[in-house]
């Protein structure tokens, strides 16, 4: 990236409460036999033989998503934090969108009691700091939309 760009990191946070104990959520998230069944995303598949997890800090985190038209979207990164069953992070060194090439995603598994678990996905992305503050000031409808998205 050219140095003239004043870029900074921003995070997108997505939360979901699940009716399941934390250990189960962790297993479904980290076991390739399970990941192939839900990773997707919608309309995509992530074939089991294209998932390679070495579940430890610095270990390989590699998978390939296959689009509806058969196009492949490989993601080749490494695990950062591996703290079962509480926290997991992985870097996406290459993704389908080059803007999140250096993005890192952290997943927190929070126990809610009563065998419920909250999953918090925090994904880092790169964009200009000022864009967000400007968006929050409500400059145009597009920026409002952008601010809402970035604010989670």
């Amino acid at each position: 990236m050219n140095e003239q760009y004043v870029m900074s990191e921003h995070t997108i946070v997505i939360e979901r409460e699940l009716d399941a104990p934390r250990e189960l959520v962790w297993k479904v998230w980290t076991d390739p036999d399970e990941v192939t069944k839900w990773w997707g995303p919608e309309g995509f598949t992530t074939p089991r033989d294209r998932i390679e997890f070495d579940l430890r800090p610095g270990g390989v985190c590699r998978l390939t998503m296959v689009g509806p038209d058969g196009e492949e979207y490989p993601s080749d990164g490494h695990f950062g934090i591996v703290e079962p069953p509480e926290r997991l992070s992985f870097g996406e060194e290459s993704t389908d969108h080059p803007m999140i090439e250096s993005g890192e995603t952290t997943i927190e598994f929070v126990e809610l009691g009563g065998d419920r678990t909250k999953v918090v996905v925090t994904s880092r992305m790169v964009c200009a700091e000022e864009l967000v503050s400007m968006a929050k000031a409500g400059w145009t409808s597009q920026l409002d939309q952008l601010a809402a998205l970035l604010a989670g």
Partner: protein
Amino acid sequence: MPTATDHLSLTFAALADPTRRALLERLADDGEVTVNELADPFPLTLQAISKHLKVLERAGLITRGRSAQLRPARLDGASLREAADWIERYREVWEGRLDRLALRIREIQRKATDDE
């Protein structure tokens, strides 16, 4: 690196400067404005204003008219929409993914209950 990313980078970079944001705000309020009119409220030379406009134009945030020296500028929302759309898509991917995770977990639990 694909063009789409370069374009987004240009957009974000163009928006990172306070003078350029002020120029965009002015264009958002007033529609088409000439360089002279744009320069008026700023303690900057016409040359400096032109330079900022060039950055905004390259990022696709504004379009410039062709009327000789005046070259009136106009806001173009498409670049901003592109940036917003990209984040929206990214969020949707994750929302969909968590839907599928929840479904898979329910499936496992149902199976466990059936087996008991």
